[in-house]
């Protein structure tokens, strides 16, 4: 094999490795995107895991209005709404709000609430210590329940933000069942 051929082979191999790396990179964009979303609140995506609020002090000089919003995906036969339409909260203070859900589909159902926070710039400052949206929720036929969210607003939030909307879209996740116990933590069955 000539020198030429050898150097062709080496360079080709390097480039093929680069190509495979970039293919992998496309998939790496998925966790990377999730990470950046949580850090930066891109598109109002917020953490899907519990936040800690250790070491925060309450800033009573400011009050922020948090509005709750619910959406049912694809005419899902559920009732799903916040118990209160909004809450006033001081940064650093923890509050609890329940969302009422009722399964009107006529059969057992697994649903998942997907959270979204607006404005995008506020998303990374509204944090949840506990939320029904962290897991899929199993509902028996006709079951009614209040589902809790414990949340707080990070005092580092820019002073220009005075209103935040916490929104949940409820999805039928029958096609995406996760292997876990029927998770109903903190739920008050009615």
């Amino acid at each position, binding site marked *: 094999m000539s020198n030429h051929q050898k150097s062709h082979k080496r360079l080709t191999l390097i480039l093929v490795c680069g190509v495979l790396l970039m293919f992998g990179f496309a998939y790496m964009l998925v966790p990377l995107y999730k990470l950046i979303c949580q850090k930066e609140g891109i598109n109002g995506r917020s953490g899907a895991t519990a936040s800690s609020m250790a070491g925060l002090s309450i800033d009573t000089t400011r009050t922020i209005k948090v509005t709750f919003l619910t959406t049912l995906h*694809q005419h899902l036969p559920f009732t799903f709404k916040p118990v209160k339409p909004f809450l006033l909260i001081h940064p650093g203070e923890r509050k609890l709000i329940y969302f009422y859900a009722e399964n009107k589909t006529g059969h057992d159902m697994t649903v998942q609430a997907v959270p979204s926070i607006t*404005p995008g710039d506020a998303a990374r400052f509204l944090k949840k210590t506990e939320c029904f949206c962290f897991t899929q929720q199993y509902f028996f036929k006709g079951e009614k329940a209040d589902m809790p969210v414990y949340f707080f607003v990070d005092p580092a939030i820019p002073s220009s933000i005075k*209103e935040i909307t916490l929104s949940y879209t409820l999805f039928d996740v029958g096609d995406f069942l996760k292997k876990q116990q029927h998770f109903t933590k903190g739920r008050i069955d009615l």
Partner: protein
Amino acid sequence: MRRIFLFVLTSFFAIAALATPGINMPVGVTPVSQEIYRLHMAAFYVCCVIGAGVFGVLIYSLIAFRKSKGAKAVHFHEHLGLEIVWTTIPFLILVALAIPATIVLSHIHNTDQSGLTVKITGYQWRWKYEYLDQNISFFSDLSTTQDQINNKAAKSPWFLLEVDHPLVVPVHTKVRLLVTADDVIHAWWVPELGVKQDAIPGFVNENWMMIEKTGTYRGQCGELCGLNHAFMPIVVEAVSPSDFAKWVTAHQARVKGDHS
């Protein structure tokens, strides 16, 4: 050849001048749309100046240095000073444009206390409006008939830009828009209000508008959403606050009437 070029150019502007309505971005009726308009025009004029400079040199060269007129090429092909100049000047122009753009953007993102919150949901192929505090909710469908689309009936003046139930909002009130979608991505766009916001299934985006003039404003879905993407217009009716209060009462009464 040059004469042909000039002819094309002039005929172009002549055609453009004839069809003046809707040649430029509308100034609009919200503070944001007016700011966007001014930014757009500033950028346009900057582009005109740059274009005039480049095309000026180009046209001069094309006339002055023709081989057929006996031009001889002057051999120069590298000049560091010139490269630095035409790197620096555009850069400074960009900075000058970036500053107002950043300021306008910060206004768009300013979501201070609003007087009214409307949730907008995009469906294939209609819009749903929900007034969160007033407990009002309705769908808004295209009201142009199929016969008009298929050329079997005379087209109404607002062909494809008319709906059965417009979004009614009060003027001089900051209206917060929470935009989402049910199926695929749509975009809620009304040019005169300076609002375009993608509606994404599962997630909520926020925008706002404060309309300064009563009137009817029309827009369309801005993101390809399938078959009837062209047939889900948006109509916003801006009314005085007292008229809005009346509309709310009437609407609530009607809904109550329907239920009982």
